[in-house]
């Protein structure tokens, strides 16, 4: 019985430790955003915005770091990566990012309907304390992001 308890406690400790490691492992979000921009096919010109503009765009004002590329407005194409302080903050940022994409979808539906379809396939995911968004015509975005975040 005592050995079983020690075994369960050990397993729990390993699980907690690996979870913490996943949250604290550093990811270069700028490199991630650059990789997406250079690897994927985009129809519009994507230009970087400063962190203040990025925060205002996504209404995420507590990011530790951010890297956002926007289009000219001709398309809904966009890349955004945010590093938050912990998983809790990242979860809230994920909701904000999902809200941004939903609003874009609504706006483009009346303006440029084909962009609304593109937004339906947008990648909006959270990896530990990181949130990544990618709107592109290229379906490989999800795989590239997952490979990078592993």
């Amino acid at each position: 019985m005592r050995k079983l308890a020690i075994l369960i406690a050990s397993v729990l400790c390993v699980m907690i430790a690996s979870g913490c490691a996943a949250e604290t492992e550093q990811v270069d979000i700028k490199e991630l955003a650059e990789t997406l921009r250079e690897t994927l096919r985009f129809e519009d010109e994507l230009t970087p915005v400063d962190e203040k503009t990025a925060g205002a765009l996504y209404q995420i004002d507590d990011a530790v770091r951010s890297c956002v590329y926007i289009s000219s407005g001709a398309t809904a194409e966009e890349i955004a990566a945010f590093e938050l302080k912990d998983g809790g903050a990242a979860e809230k940022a994920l909701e904000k990012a999902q809200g941004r994409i939903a609003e874009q979808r609504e706006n483009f539906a009346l303006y440029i309907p084909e962009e609304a379809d593109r937004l339906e396939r947008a990648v909006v995911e959270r990896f530990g304390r990181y949130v990544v968004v990618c709107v592109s015509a290229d379906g490989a975005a999800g795989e590239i992001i997952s490979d990078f975040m592993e």
Partner: protein
Amino acid sequence: MQYYRMGLAAPKRRNLNPRKRRIRRRRLCLLLAAVLLFSAALGIASACAQSGREPAPPSAADPEQPPAADPPSREPPRPPEDRLPEPDVPYLYSEPVPVSEAVGLSYFDDAVFIGDSRTEGLLLNTGLTNATGYVHKGLMVDTVFTKKVINKNGRKLSVIDALRETDFAKVYLMLGINETGWPYSSVFIEKYGEIIDTVREINPEAVIYIQEIIPVSEKVSSTHSYVKNDKIAERNGLLANLAAEKQVYYIDVSAAVVSEDGSLPEDAATDGIHLKKEYCQKWLDYLKTHTVM
């Protein structure tokens, strides 16, 4: 006093002869008059010497002519700050705002930009985060009043309602590209005028700038079903007239970005309509050098 007792010589007594006294008095008066006359003459001569003016420089029209000798003025020249102000020249509101000394980005701290997706691009691509942007894709002169598209403190408001809750000193308007499909220009101008009237009602002191509609590329103009550069040019002419009527300022921002044929260059926008970052920066730079106050 008995000076002899003190061993001192007694003071000499003056001659009290009345005739001699009269002569003496007369001489003193004559001497005094001469001194006064001499002083007056000296003062007048000195004043004349100081008030003499420099001769005028030769005119540009005829540099060979000797400079004219101006008569000496009675008063010395006044310093620049005391000169009378230039007579007021009425501002021609129908003319574009002339070029001015470039302002810094802080000029836009109290500015509100109202516009469609093109203005949205301007604000995002130039990082003009200090200005307030009430912008929305597809925004038009009528939906400015009706469509609740502005997020403000957790609420969705129309542009005009959001403006009522905003402190501002300047408003930059650019609307019209989405209305090129409207058949009647008069309706477009009437609604635009209502926006100006409402802004004035909210803040009578606000500086209002009408930015002309930036043309599109030649490719878009020749292929799009309703967005045409000649229609845009017609609407811009009406906007200039509106600026004169409402006494607001008109900025010919197109001059910053169009090519010689008056259309947007092909490399200025991916779709021929929405300006890329480089051209958004040219647009902002033009605004920075065309202000009125």
